[in-house]
């Protein structure tokens, strides 16, 4: 679905930002891209959605080479939700903001309205359809931005720090959407600092360090390697650490930790 083959990138006159990047992502996978600030995460994100072109190597999305495909065409194959929703919201109603993408795809009338209603339901803002997106709270604005991209039904979904500033309710919506998308065969890519979120939702972790791939492993294998998490400069999720302290088999999530603990102490 998404294929990155021996990509290098440098800004004009600058040091290389990314070197020798190669990976592919399959349908239904949830890949988290992690690493320190300045490790090259945001540049990689821009290479994936075509806003930047690799100096060498190729990026292929849904069979399209990003080098030969205009960004606005590629947008129908890879949907990006940026960190700042305020940078893309420009309609006076949540409804119209969601409608923007599908309209570009030529959807009109009842089909368009059905698509909008479906998305509004998924982001939990059906009641807010007629409100101004910027009159909503920060978390709802983030969900509007997510919804405006979901409405285009892209086969690849690119989410940049989607969890930021969300409370339990909004977070549950986000996690449900990520899970549903993966289930439906969408390839979901998270660029994320929140390792608890990564541990709960990602199936695989791609860690960047100094512009190179430091690790590309299933989530559990990544977090249980001290060497790799240190190299990538990320925190180890508490359940992973706690399971190790308690001598339990490796786990990623609180629920898995509880289950393993209960299994371990059944006899007691």
């Amino acid at each position, binding site marked *: 679905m998404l294929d990155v083959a021996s990509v290098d990138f440098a800004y004009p006159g600058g040091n290389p930002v990314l070197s020798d990047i190669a990976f592919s992502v399959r349908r239904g996978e949830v890949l988290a891209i992690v690493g320190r600030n300045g490790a090259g995460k945001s540049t990689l994100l*821009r290479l994936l*959605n*075509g*806003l930047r072109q690799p100096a060498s190597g190729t990026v292929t999305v849904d069979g399209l080479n990003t080098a030969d495909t*205009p*960004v*606005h065409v590629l*947008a*129908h194959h890879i*949907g*990006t939700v*940026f960190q*700042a929703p*305020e*940078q*893309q*919201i*420009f309609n006076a109603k949540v409804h119209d903001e969601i409608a*923007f*993408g599908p309209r*570009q*795809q030529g959807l009109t009338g009842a089909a368009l309205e059905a698509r909008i209603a479906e998305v509004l339901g998924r982001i939990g803002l059906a009641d807010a359809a007629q409100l101004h997106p*910027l009159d909503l709270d920060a978390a709802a604005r983030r969900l509007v931005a997510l919804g*405006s*991209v979901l409405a*285009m039904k892209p086969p690849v979904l690119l989410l940049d720090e989607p969890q930021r500033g969300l409370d339990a309710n909004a977070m549950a919506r986000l996690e449900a959407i990520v899970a549903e998308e993966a289930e439906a065969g969408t390839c979901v890519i998270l660029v994320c600092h929140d390792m608890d979120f990564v541990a709960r939702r990602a199936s695989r972790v791609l860690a960047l360090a100094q512009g190179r791939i430091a690790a590309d492993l299933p989530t559990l294998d990544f977090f249980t390697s001290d060497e790799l998490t240190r190299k990538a400069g990320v925190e180890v999720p508490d359940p992973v650490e706690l399971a190790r302290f308690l001598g339990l088999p490796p786990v990623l999530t609180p629920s898995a930790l509880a289950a393993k603990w209960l299994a371990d102490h059944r006899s007691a």
Partner: protein
Amino acid sequence: MSSRSGPQSGQTALLFLPGDSLLHRANPLTSLIFMLWMISAAAVLPTIGTTILIVAGVALSFAMGVGPRVTKRLVITMLPLLVALLVVHGFLVSRPDFIPLVGPLTYSPTGLEYAAQVVTRIGAMLTASLIFVTTTHPGDILKSLDQRGVSPGVSYLIASPLLLIEPFSERAKAIRDAQRARGLDLTSTFKARFKALPALLIPLITLALSDLDHRASILNSRAFRAQKHRTVIDAPPDDRFQVWLRRVLIVLAIAQLGIPLLWR
């Protein structure tokens, strides 16, 4: 700190070039009045005088270490004006002394003379302004204003736009990228590109207004305009010589503008 140096303190958006020349070290008011004197001279001098003024100004700019920037700006700005003026006054505006050139084309020596007069006059004024803006950091101008008790609101209105141009320009690019990445086509028909404008402008303006809310709280909580006067730190140095120089230049400027008027 009145003569700023080092690439870090400079603003890429400004015409100002850091340096340590005489004009860089001069009090901003002195530089300002020097500029005004030069502009007033350019307003009244004949073509030969304004030409000398340009040459002298450019020479001065090289002596102050800002020559290449001043010359480049001068040429870029003046070339289209020069061409337009020569065409309009040399060939188009009908004058009694039209001389046939080739075919239906005629030209006027007095028209060309007039064009030369206007070009050198604007050129001299532009040279004066360019010398001023390339050697004087706006921050220092504002400190001079503060020092003289000008309302802090006035300095805010000059300083803030200067500082915000770069961040806003970056933001405009980020907005463009975000909209393209959700399918906005900026390359198709005239109508489609025109309709794309709101998608680019509205986020920029709403972001500016949401900054506004926050910035107003910050300014109020930093006691902005709470007192009539504010303390000026690192005030640009001044001395008796500069005070007198300014007085002389002001008298000269008034005399230059006034005497030709009385003459008539």
